[in-house]
């Protein structure tokens, strides 16, 4: 249980992370793999002479305990970025408020796509957000800002996020991912008319071509340009 409190606060809300881990497929897999063997091992330690009621109780309690600790361990792993470390796919971070509030008008943009200063500037001008009013109450805005900052491009150990960060000159604070040199260099072979297709809309609609965009997965095997 200690992990819950000592793991690094990459995600601004560990409760959310915990929830995320519960729903996460990876943690399910981990649970399926560990629970039966560990469980057997521990029940073996129980003295044979103890009555069945106690044994059943122990068994149930241990199963639950193992489930909880597996989930906790997985969240700690996720929080430390342990799963993808320096890899290409961005960390599977999530926050409930971010998911609800930043997905109404467009796809969810992964926090690892922009540096801290960009998110701060954006979150301080939500009433005039690309010509629209996206304002939030102070508490919600603060929670989302903290989440975005904690997982922003410069703070991630992820290779792609680091490259995005490095492609932006220090004296520039882009509000658009599509304006970064990283983005333009990766898409120099995609013509402007392709981005304007009805099925796509604009370059900002990453998910039209990158199926895993909302999870921060832009790997080449996942790219498909719609007609």
């Amino acid at each position, binding site marked *: 249980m200690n992990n819950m409190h000592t793991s690094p606060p990459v995600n601004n809300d560990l409760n959310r992370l915990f929830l995320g881990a519960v729903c996460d497929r990876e943690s399910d897999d981990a649970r399926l793999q560990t629970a039966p063997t560990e469980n057997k091992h521990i029940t073996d330690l129980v003295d044979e002479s103890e009555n069945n009621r106690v044994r059943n109780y122990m068994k149930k*309690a241990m199963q639950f305990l193992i489930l909880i600790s597996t989930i906790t361990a997985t969240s700690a792993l996720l929080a430390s970025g342990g799963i993808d470390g320096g890899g290409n796919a961005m960390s599977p971070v999530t926050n409930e408020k971010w998911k609800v509030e930043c997905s109404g008008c*467009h796809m969810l943009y992964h926090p690892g796509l922009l540096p801290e200063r960009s998110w701060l500037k954006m979150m301080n001008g939500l009433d005039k957000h690309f010509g629209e009013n996206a304002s939030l109450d102070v508490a919600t805005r603060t929670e989302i800002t903290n989440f975005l900052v904690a997982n922003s491009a410069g703070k991630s150990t992820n290779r792609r996020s680091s490259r995005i960060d490095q492609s932006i000159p220090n004296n520039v604070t882009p509000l658009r991912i599509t304006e970064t040199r990283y983005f333009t260099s990766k898409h120099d072979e995609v013509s402007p008319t392709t981005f304007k297709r009805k099925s*796509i809309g604009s370059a*900002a609609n990453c998910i039209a071509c990158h199926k895993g965009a909302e999870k921060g997965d832009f790997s080449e095997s996942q790219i498909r340009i719609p007609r």
Partner: protein
Amino acid sequence: MRKNIMLLGLLSSLLSSALFSVNVLAATPQELLKQYEAQAKQENPSFAGFSADRGGVFFKTEHTHSTGQQVSCATCHTTDPRKQGKSRANKVIEPMAIIANPQRFTDTAKVEKWFSRNCKDVLERSCTAQEKGDYIQYLISLK
């Protein structure tokens, strides 16, 4: 050992129940109308009820925004609110008519948030309780 397990078990279940409790301000479209009615009576002593027809006109009326653009609620929510709409950033917006989307007007905080944003975007002012009530009445009336 047993005591520890019990304690841990208790702790974990407390933790999970706290984590899984969700609080939303659940409501029905009718309950929302009641709230707007009370507000409308305060705003206007001669308030005489909501009208689906007026709501329909409000939904479709185009306004010239100070940026020069012609906008209405129908710009994003489409002239037939039983159909899916589209945001400016090309994301599908689920239908607004209750018949096509029973989720609509069931969360007071969400409804107020979007009225506040979209009225400012389209009308460059807040909507009155009368306008909000007419709008909901119209979306309920569609069959």
